[in-house]
C-alpha cells in the first residue's frame, strides 16, 4: 500500500476519500436523524440530469451535477412544504425526471461520453485535481454552515413545530439543510458514483448511532467510519482488482450489519 502512494492518482484517491468521509460523516447524521434518506437518494439520482447537461454543453459534468442537485433539492423541499402532494410521490417524480433528462442530454451529445461510468458508479482512482479542489470547497461550505447553525439544525431535526413556536425560520432552514445534502451528494459522486451515494450518506451515520447519543460525537464517529470504509474499500479494490465504489459500499454494508448484530447481542446479554 505504501509504495502505491508514490503514484499521484493514489494520493488523489486518498485525499478524495478523506474529503468524502468528512462530508458524509457530518451531513449523513442529519440524513439519518431527520429521516430524509429517500429524499437524499432522489437528489442524487436527479443530479444525473446535470451530468448529462454538462456533457451536452461541453462544461464539467460535475458542475452540471452541482446545479441539478441544488435545484432538485430546493424544488422538492418547496413542493413538500407548500403543497399537499405526499412526500414520497414528490421524491419519485424528481428522481425519474432527473435521470430521464440525463439520458436525453447524453443521447443528444455527439460522440462518446467519456468517464460516464465513473459518474454513475464512482471511480476514486480517476478523480482529477480540479474535482478535488471543488470537493474541498464544498467541504468548507458544509462545515461552515453546520458549525454556524448547529443548534438550529438540532431543533429542526427534533421538533419542527416547537421550532416554529420559538420563532425559528423552519422552512428556510429545511431548504438550507436540503441544499447542504445536495452539496454532499456532489462531493460523494466522484468517490462512489451517484447510484451508490445514498449508501455513504447513511451507513456511517447509522453505524455511529449505535455507539453514542450525542449528535456531535455521532458526526465525529461517522467521519471516522467513513474514512475507514473508503480507505479500506480502496485498498481491497486495489488488492483484489475490483470496482472501487462498489467495494467501498459492500465493505461499509458488511460493517454496518456486523455492528447491528453486535448491538443486538449486547442488548440481549444485558437482559
Amino acid at each position, binding site marked *: 500500500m505504501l509504495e502505491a502512494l508514490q503514484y499521484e492518482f493514489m494520493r488523489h484517491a486518498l485525499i478524495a476519500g478523506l474529503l468524502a468521509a468528512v462530508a458524509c460523516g457530518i451531513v449523513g*447524521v442529519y440524513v439519518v*436523524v431527520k*429521516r430524509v434518506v429517500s429524499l437524499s437518494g432522489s437528489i442524487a439520482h436527479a443530479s444525473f440530469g446535470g451530468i448529462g447537461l454538462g456533457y451536452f454543453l461541453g462544461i464539467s459534468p460535475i458542475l452540471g451535477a452541482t446545479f441539478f442537485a441544488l435545484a432538485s433539492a430546493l424544488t422538492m423541499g418547496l413542493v413538500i412544504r407548500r403543497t399537499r402532494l405526499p412526500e414520497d410521490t414528490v421524491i419519485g417524480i424528481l428522481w425519474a425526471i432527473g435521470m430521464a433528462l440525463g439520458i436525453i442530454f447524453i443521447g443528444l451529445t455527439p460522440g462518446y461520453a467519456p468517464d460516464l461510468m465513473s459518474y454513475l458508479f464512482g471511480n476514486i482512482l480517476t478523480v482529477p485535481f480540479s474535482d478535488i479542489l471543488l470537493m474541498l470547497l464544498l467541504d468548507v461550505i458544509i462545515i461552515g454552515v453546520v458549525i*454556524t*447553525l448547529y*443548534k*438550529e439544525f*438540532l*431543533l429542526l*431535526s*427534533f*421538533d419542527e*413545530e*416547537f*421550532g*416554529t*413556536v*420559538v*420563532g*425559528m*425560520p423552519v422552512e428556510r432552514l429545511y431548504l438550507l439543510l436540503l441544499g447542504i445534502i445536495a452539496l454532499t451528494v456532489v462531493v460523494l459522486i466522484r468517490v462512489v458514483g451517484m447510484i451508490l451515494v445514498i449508501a455513504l450518506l447513511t451507513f456511517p451515520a447509522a453505524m455511529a*448511532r449505535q455507539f*453514542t*447519543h*450525542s*449528535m456531535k460525537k*455521532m458526526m465525529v464517529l461517522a467521519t471516522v467510519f467513513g474514512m475507514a470504509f473508503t480507505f479500506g474499500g480502496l485498498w481491497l479494490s486495489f488488492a483484489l482488482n475490483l470496482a472501487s465504489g462498489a467495494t467501498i459500499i459492500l465493505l461499509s454494508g458488511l460493517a454496518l450489519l456486523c455492528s447491528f448484530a453486535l448491538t443486538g447481542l449486547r442488548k440481549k446479554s444485558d437482559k
Partner: protein
Amino acid sequence: MATQEIVRLEDVWVRYNGTPVLEGITLSILEHDFLGIIGPNGGGKTTLLKVILGLIKPQHGTVLVLGKPPEQSRRYIGYVPQYFLFDRSFPANVLEVVLMGRYGRTGPFHRYSQEDVHAAEQALARMGMLSFRDRQIGALSGGQQQRVFIARALVAEPKLLLLDEPMASVAQDVQTEFYELLDDLKKTITIVMVSHDIGAISVYVDKIACLNSQLCYHGSKEISAEVLEATYKCPVQLIAHGTVPHRVLKEH
C-alpha cells in the same frame, strides 16, 4: 391595576377541507387564570391551542395574545405539545432539549450562553429532573419526558403556558404529584390545559370551558350537566366540588 387580558379570541372559525372544527369561538383568558378546556377527542382542543400559538390561521376571526398577533407574542408563550412520538434513539440529551426553549431569547447564529444553561438547569430542577440532565431524552419514561417538555416550555420564562393533554403519558400514581406541580406554577403563570378527561382536570383548574367545535365558557368552574351533555353528546358523570371532591352520577 386591572387584570391583564392574556388571550383574546373573537368569532374564530377554522375549517379543515370544509368541515368546521372551530365554530365562532370567542374567549378571553385573563392573567393568572388556570383554565381547563375539556371536550371529546376531535372536538378541536388541539386546534384551539394551535390557533392561540399562530400555528393555524383561522379562516375568520381575530386572535390576540397580549394584545398582539400570536406571531409577535409567541416568545411569551410556553407550549407543551401532546406527547409526540419522536425517534426514541434521537441523539440529544435532556439538557439539549430544554435549551431548545431558549431559542427565542438566544436567536440565530449565537450559541447558547452560560446564562441559558443556568436557566435550563433551574427549569429542570423545578420539575425535579435535574439529575437526568445528561440522559438521552428517548431513554426516559413518558412522564419524565413530559416533565422535560414542560421545563423546555418554562425555560423561556413565558407568561402563558399551554398544555395539550399533559396527563396522557403520565402514570396514574404520579398524576397527583403532577397536578400539585401545576398548582405551584399557576401562582406566576397563566395556564391553559386541554384534556378529554373531565374527572382529572376539574379538581385543580380554576375555570373550565367545554369545547366541541363550539365553546361553552362562563368564566367559572361551574358546568351544568346540560352543557356537558351537549359537549359530549351523551350522558356524563358530573363532579361537584365541596370540601371533599365527590362524583354525582346522573341517571341515564
